[in-house]
């Protein structure tokens, strides 16, 4: 049996934020792993805890008010909670990089783009400043921006180009893991496609593992190998792309697919998932999805569902399934 090597493994991660309105439980026993070279799609609605997961891997949860109360995160086998801040700084940008959602505000307005790219290179690799600038220009070319534009400032670029600069910064040191937090959400649809294509190409070239955080199932289908569906700070279904898309089990995942408009049947009514995300300061006792679930049962109200595996990779946490019924898709009692 070959040892699977994981870029990142998260186990039992709990993250809380202390706010005026109460304690927000952002992540609850979050569990996640990404194999080397693969891309995981982290899917869920806004507020499900996707960005928090990404930030946790970089240990960038703002510390007041955020607190990691429990859990481990291993990057290439090493638990990042065991190391010092200085050592963590060495990992950021080099072993793991993150791309954030809004390119308009992610770049420092008073520093040139090539300087911003060169900075990460100089921090982690043994080059002098001139060499770093040269490499920075090469990165710019790689993401489709002419190297001569390096000495320009962020405000001189369009949104799509800014995002490419952000990607250039993230990939400059060939990180083993790239976390992309909704990298195309703020962009026009046509630019979205370009940027995604570019990311796919770079991923191939550098063999980077990637965590693609998104709420857009189309993007997941384009670029991901595996999918984790997040709800209420917890993964409620996980599997390969084929598993989750073709053998959908969890009612929430089902709801997500159902709420996509159907191009073939334009007049059909949209079927959104009823209700809203739970209040993170006051999570339900049992299954987190209970209040919105079409298939809700008594037990769902008070007991958290256990994990049930359909095959080696695909699992779901839902009272509708047991070891048997999960394989053939029959729902218990329905």
């Amino acid at each position, binding site marked *: 049996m070959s040892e699977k090597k994981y870029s990142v493994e998260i186990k039992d991660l709990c993250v809380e934020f202390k706010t005026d309105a109460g304690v927000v439980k952002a992540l609850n026993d979050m569990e996640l792993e990404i194999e080397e070279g693969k891309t995981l799609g982290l899917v869920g609605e806004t507020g499900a805890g996707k960005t928090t997961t990404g930030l946790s891997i*970089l240990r*960038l949860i703002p510390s007041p008010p955020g607190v990691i109360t429990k859990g481990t995160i291993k990057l290439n086998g090493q638990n990042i909670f065991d190391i010092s*801040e*200085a050592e963590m*700084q*060495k*990992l*950021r*940008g*080099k072993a793991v*990089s*993150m791309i*954030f959602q*809004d390119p308009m*505000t*992610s*770049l*420092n*307005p*008073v*520093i040139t783009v090539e300087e911003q790219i060169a*900075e*990460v290179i100089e*921090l*982690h690799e043994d080059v002098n400043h001139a060499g770093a600038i040269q490499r920075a220009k090469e990165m710019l070319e790689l993401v489709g921006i002419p190297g001569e534009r390096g000495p320009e*400032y962020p*405000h*001189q670029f369009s949104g799509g180009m800014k995002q490419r600069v*952000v990607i250039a*910064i993230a990939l400059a040191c060939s990180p083993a893991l790239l976390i992309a937090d909704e990298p195309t959400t703020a962009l026009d649809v046509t630019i979205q496609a370009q940027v995604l294509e570019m990311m796919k190409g770079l991923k191939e070239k550098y063999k980077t593992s990637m965590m693609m955080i998104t709420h857009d199932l189309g993007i997941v289908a384009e670029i991901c190998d595996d999918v984790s569906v997040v709800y209420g700070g917890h993964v409620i279904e996980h599997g390969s792309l084929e598993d989750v898309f073709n053998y959908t089990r969890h009612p929430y995942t089902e709801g997500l697919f159902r709420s996509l408009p159907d191009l073939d049947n334009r007049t059909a009514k949209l079927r959104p998932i009823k209700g809203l995300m739970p209040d993170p300061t006051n999570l339900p006792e049992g299954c987190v999805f209970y209040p919105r679930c079409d298939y809700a049962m008594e037990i769902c109200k008070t007991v958290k569902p256990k994990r049930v595996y359909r095959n080696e990779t695909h699992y779901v946490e839902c009272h509708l399934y047991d070891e048997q019924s999960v394989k053939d898709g029959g729902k218990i009692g329905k």
Partner: protein
Amino acid sequence: MWKFIVKRLIAMVPVLLGVTLIIYLIMNMAPGDPAKVILGEQATPEQIAALREEMHLNDPVLIQYARYILNLLRGDMGTSYNSGLNCATEIFARFPNTLRLTVTAVSLSIILALPIGILAAVHQNSVFDGVSMFVALLGLSMPVFWLGMLLILLFSLRLGWLPSSGSEGFKSLVLPGVTLGFQHMAAIARVTRSSMLEVIRADYIRTARAKGVSENKVITKHALKNALIPTVTVIGIQFGGMLGGSVMTESVFAWPGIGRLMVQSINKRDIPMVLGCVIMFSVSFSIVNLIVDILYGFIDPRIKSQYK
């Protein structure tokens, strides 16, 4: 960049003309006859009338103003009503003193306020933050002249460390400089802190951290330059207040600058002197504002592109 500077200098001209016009009109609203003031109580009506003719006081105000401006451009600010001295000579003799005092106060305030503001922001809600910001608020609430008096009381009269008047040497600059600069310092510390707090929360700071930049460098290299932008604005605005404050400070410390000259002239109803002093102040203020605008261009590249 030079084009911008020249453009601004040219734009300053109508503003300064407007300033001189307004001050001139204000000063000419004063009741009383200048000719009488110059000649004194004993003057006969004929003498007064003759002097009025000679001084062109019977011309329409705007003509008098135009004459004043033409003279001003030649460096002539008129003659004092009381002492008969040449205003320009007196004013330019004292101006360097005011300059010395103001430059000291500004430098002191910026050098102290910036680190305090930054530290307060980085250690938000700490004891240092609370105390420094409270002291800053007190500083903004204190009248300049009262602060001067208190400092004199403590450091001159009780402790005898520093002189309370005179303008020779470094020691005599300390108390007036601190007095004048304190309010400025308080305002700058506050705005530095608040703009630093805002900048630290920005997305691009998160990006910098995600690159593995150390926290120190995040503050000094990434946050600071951005935080300076509103700070520089406040430095410029506050400078106007400082010029007003210099009048008070020079009075309290008997500092021989144009602020003190102005107050003395007002009490003697010496209008040309007062006029000259206020114009000097206004020109200085406009130049400082121009310097601030240029500084902007250096700090914020978005504005620099507008300047080209």
